[in-house]
C-alpha cells in the first residue's frame, strides 16, 4: 500500500500581468483582456527548471529528507544529457537515491506513477517532482496563461494524505506541446476536436481502470483533469456515469496554465478539501492519457507547505520586455564584459561539491565557530583540521552590507550582492535575488535560494546559492 505522504510547492516571486502582455502585443489578443487584472508567476533570470525543482524538493522533504528515488517530470530536459533529477539529488545529499528525469506532455503524472511503483517495489520513499518552466513564444496563445512553478510529492508506505489504488494508461502520438531546441512550441489543434479526442481517450482509459479496480463510477467524488476546454469534465462524467455530485478540478480554463505540473497541482487542490475515504480520479492527457485513482485520508493532519506562501505572496511585477529578456526569448547584447566568462572546472566543482551544491561550511569543534567555506585552519582559533560539516542551506541570515552594481555583466542589472551574517554564526558574500533595489536595507532578513550562477561558453550551467528576502523565499 502506497500513500502520498507529503506535498511541497514552489512559486517564483516575479509576476507578469496578463494585460501587460496583451498591451505589449497590441492587436494579437483583441478584446480578450479588457479589465483583466490577472497575472502569472514567472521565473527570475537566475531560475530554470532545475532550480524550480530544487526549491519544490526542499519544500517537500527539506535538507535532511531522504528518498530511495527521485523522479523529475518536465516537458523537456533542461540540460540534455545532464539529468535534472541528479542535480536535485546532489543538492539534497541523496547520493544513494536513484535519480531519473521523466520527459513528456504528462511528465508530472508519469513521474508520480514511477515514484509510486518504485515505492511499491522497494518499500522506500520516492520523491516525484513536476516542473513547469514555461517560455511560450511571443504571440502564442499560451503566452497569456503559462505560469512557472514546481510541485513535489513524496510517496511511501507510511500513512499519508491519500492512498493510491491503481492506474491505467493509453498512448497515442498526438502532441499538442513540445520543444524544438530552446523553442517551446504550442501545437494546439482546433479546440473542439482536441476536446473530443481527449474525452474519447479518457473514457476508454478510465473505464479500464475502474473495471480493473472494481470501482463503480458513481463512487468518484472528485475528478481532477487539467483541460483546455471547460466542458470536458461534464461530457466525460456523463459518458462514464460519474455522479453529478462529483467535484471538478482543472476545469477553470481562465486560470494560470501550469503546464505539465497542472495535474499534480490540481490533485493537491483536491486533497486539500477532500473528506476521508473520498475517491479522487486523476486524469492527465497528452500523447495519450493516464488515469490514477486515490482515496483521500482527510485533511486534518496535512502539513502546511512553506512553498504555498510563495503563491500567496504578491510578488514583484516585471514588464513583458524584462520577462522576454530573462526567459531568453529575445537576443540580448550583454556586453564584452560578459564574454570573459570561462569554462567551469569540473574537478574543482567536484572537490567542493558540498559547499557549492549544499552550501555546506564547517564548525570548529575547538571554538564552535561556524564558517564558510570549510577550511583546514579555523578562522577564529587557528585550530587545524577541527571542522565538522554544517549546512547553511536552510539557515536564515541578516544582510550586513550591500551594493547595487550597474557595471557587472548581468541579464538582470543591477547585480545585487551583500555580506550575509548567518544565524548562529558564519558569514559569506552572496549575490542577492528575488528583490528590488528599493526594498534592500542593512539588517534585512534573508535565506538561501539555489539559483543559476553562470552559464559557461559550452552551455554548462553552474548553480550556487544566493540570498533571497526571507519572507518571500520558500524553505
Amino acid at each position, binding site marked *: 500500500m502506497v500513500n502520498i505522504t507529503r506535498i511541497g510547492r514552489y512559486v517564483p516571486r516575479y509576476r507578469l500581468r496578463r494585460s501587460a502582455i496583451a498591451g505589449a502585443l497590441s492587436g494579437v489578443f483583441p478584446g480578450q483582456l479588457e479589465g483583466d487584472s490577472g497575472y502569472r508567476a514567472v521565473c527570475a533570470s537566475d531560475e530554470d527548471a532545475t532550480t524550480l525543482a530544487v526549491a519544490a524538493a526542499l519544500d517537500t522533504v527539506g535538507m535532511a529528507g531522504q528518498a530511495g528515488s527521485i523522479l523529475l517530470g518536465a516537458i523537456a530536459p533542461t540540460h540534455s544529457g545532464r539529468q535534472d533529477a541528479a542535480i536535485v539529488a546532489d543538492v539534497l545529499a541523496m547520493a544513494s537515491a536513484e535519480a531519473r528525469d521523466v520527459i513528456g506532455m504528462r511528465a508530472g503524472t508519469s513521474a508520480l506513477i514511477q515514484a509510486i511503483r518504485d515505492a511499491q517495489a522497494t518499500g522506500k520513499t520516492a520523491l516525484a517532482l513536476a516542473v513547469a518552466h514555461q517560455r511560450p513564444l511571443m504571440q502564442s496563445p499560451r503566452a497569456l496563461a503559462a505560469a512557472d512553478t514546481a510541485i513535489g510529492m513524496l510517496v511511501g508506505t507510511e500513512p499519508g494524505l491519500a492512498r493510491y489504488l491503481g492506474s491505467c494508461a493509453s498512448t497515442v502520438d498526438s502532441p499538442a506541446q513540445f520543444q524544438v531546441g530552446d523553442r517551446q512550441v504550442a501545437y494546439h489543434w482546433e479546440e473542439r476536436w482536441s476536446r473530443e479526442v481527449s474525452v474519447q481517450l479518457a473514457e476508454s482509459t478510465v473505464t479500464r481502470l475502474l473495471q480493473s479496480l472494481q470501482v463503480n463510477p458513481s463512487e468518484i467524488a472528485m475528478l481532477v483533469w487539467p483541460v483546455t476546454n471547460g466542458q470536458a469534465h461534464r461530457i466525460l462524467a456523463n459518458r462514464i456515469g460519474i455522479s453529478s455530485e462529483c467535484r471538478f478540478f482543472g476545469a477553470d480554463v481562465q486560470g494560470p496554465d501550469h503546464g505539465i505540473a497542472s495535474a499534480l497541482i490540481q490533485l493537491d487542490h483536491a486533497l486539500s478539501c477532500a473528506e476521508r475515504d473520498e475517491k479522487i480520479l486523476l486524469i492527465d492527457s497528452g500523447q495519450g492519457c493516464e488515469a490514477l485513482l486515490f482515496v483521500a485520508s482527510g485533511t486534518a493532519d496535512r502539513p502546511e507547505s512553506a512553498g504555498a506562501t510563495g503563491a500567496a505572496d504578491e510578488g514583484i511585477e516585471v514588464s513583458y520586455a524584462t520577462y522576454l529578456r530573462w526567459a531568453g526569448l529575445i537576443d540580448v547584447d550583454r*556586453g*564584452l*564584459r560578459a564574454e*570573459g*566568462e*570561462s*569554462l*567551469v*572546472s569540473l574537478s*574543482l*566543482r567536484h572537490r*567542493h561539491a558540498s*559547499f*557549492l551544491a549544499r552550501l555546506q561550511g564547517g564548525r570548529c569543534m575547538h571554538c564552535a*565557530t561556524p*564558517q*564558510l*567555506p570549510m*577550511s583546514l585552519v579555523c*578562522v*577564529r582559533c587557528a585550530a587545524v583540521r577541527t571542522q565538522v560539516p554544517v549546512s547553511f542551506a536552510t539557515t536564515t541570515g541578516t544582510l*550586513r*552590507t*550591500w*551594493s*547595487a*552594481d*550597474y*557595471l*557587472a*555583466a*548581468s541579464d538582470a542589472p*543591477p*547585480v545585487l*550582492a*551583500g*555580506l550575509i*551574517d548567518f544565524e548562529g*554564526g*558564519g*558569514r*559569506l*558574500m*552572496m*549575490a*542577492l535575488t528575488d528583490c528590488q533595489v528599493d526594498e534592500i536595507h*542593512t539588517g534585512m532578513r534573508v535565506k538561501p535560494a539555489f539559483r543559476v*550562477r*553562470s552559464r559557461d561558453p559550452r552551455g554548462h550551467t*553552474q548553480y*550556487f*546559492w*544566493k540570498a533571497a528576502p526571507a519572507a518571500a523565499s520558500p524553505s
Partner: protein
Amino acid sequence: MTTSIRDRVCIIGMGCSRFGERWECSTEDLIWEAFHEAAQAADVSPAELKYAWYATALEEQHIGKSGIPLALALRLRHAAVGFCAASGMEALRCASYAVAAGVCDIALALGCEKLKDTGFGGVPQSAAWGLSALYWPALTSPAAFAQLAHAYRARHGVDESLLREAMAYVSVKSHANGVANPKAHLRKTITAEQVLNAPPVAPPIGLLDCCGVSDGAACAIVCSPDAAKRRGITHPVTLKALSYAVSYGEEAQLQGWDGSHLPAVRNCAEKAYRMAGIDEPRSQIDLAQVHDCFSIAELVLLEDLMLCEEGRACQTVLAGRFDNHGAIPSQTDGGLKCFGHPISASGLRMVYELYQQLSLNAGDRQLQRRLRVGLAQSLGGLPHLCASGIAILGVSD
C-alpha cells in the same frame, strides 16, 4: 635580533610612464619608458642589474605570471628576475629586502599593466580557475566599495548628502591635481555638480567617483646607502618603512567586522609607523598618496591611516586638510583617480610621486613647503578581503 628596513635602502632613481589609453604601446614599450627615466636618473644600465622584480596582474606573453616579461623587455641576461603578483609596492619590498640583506648593491622594482586592450570599462574579473569563480557573486570593484560606503555611513551616522559632497570634493581635488601632471591619464577639471550627476555605477559611487583604468608602468632603482655614497649621492631619499598586511578571513568569515573600515590597512599602518618611528602621523606625515580607487576609499583610508579622526573624514576633507595647501596634501599627482590605475604600476607610481616631491623634482606641482616624510599606501583586493602595502619615505639629513 630583528632590525627595521629604516634608512638601510635608498632610492636613487625612479621612472614612470605616462599613464592612460596607450593604444600605441605594448607592455614592453611601457616598461622601457618607465625604466629609461629611472636608469637615466640613477645612471644605471640594464647590465648592472643583478636582481629585479616585476609586478603584473595580467601578462601578455600567455605563459603565466612571472618575471619573464621584464627579462624580455630589458633583456636582463644576467639578472635574477622575480615576480611579485599584482603589486608594485610588493616588488619594491622584494628589491629593498635584497639590498638590505646585502645580496646585491642595486635592484630594480618595476610594475606594469596593460588594461586598455580588454575593450570594456572597469578592471577585468580575476582568473577563472579558482573556487571563487564558482560561487563569487559577479560584483565588480566599485560595487564592493559601495558596500564600504553604506557601512561607513551606518557606523558613523553620516548623512548621505554629506558623504556624497565629501566624495565629490575628493574627485574634484584629484582632477585639479591631475591637470598639473603631464603623465596623468585624466587631465580635465570637473565640478562637484558633474560628479553628483554622473551616471551611477554602484550607488553611491558614480562614474566620476571611479579611478581611471589605464595602461602604464612605474619603477624604482634601489641601492644601499654605501652604494649611494659611492655614486656621489649625499642626501638620498631613503625608505623609512615598508610594511604589508593582508586579510586572513576575519572580515569575510566572522561576524565582528561591520564593513565600515579596512582592518588590514590599520594593521599595516601601525606596523609602518612603528618601523619609521612615527608616533603622531597627523603631524609627522607631510605628504600622502593613498589608494583612491574610488572616492569613498580615499575617505576611509585617511581614517585607517590615522591621518584624520575616525568618523570625521567627510568634515576633515571638506575643511581642506588634504588639499595642496592643507596640512597633509594627498593625491598631489592626481591619484589613482586621475593619474590612472594600471594595477601593478600604481604602488610604484605613488612612491614615484613621493620621490619627486621629496627630491624637489615635481615641476609645476612641487609643493612649496619643507617636506621630510611622505607616505604611500596601496591596496589589493576588495574591502572584505584585501592586502595593503605602505611605504614611508624620507630625505636623509
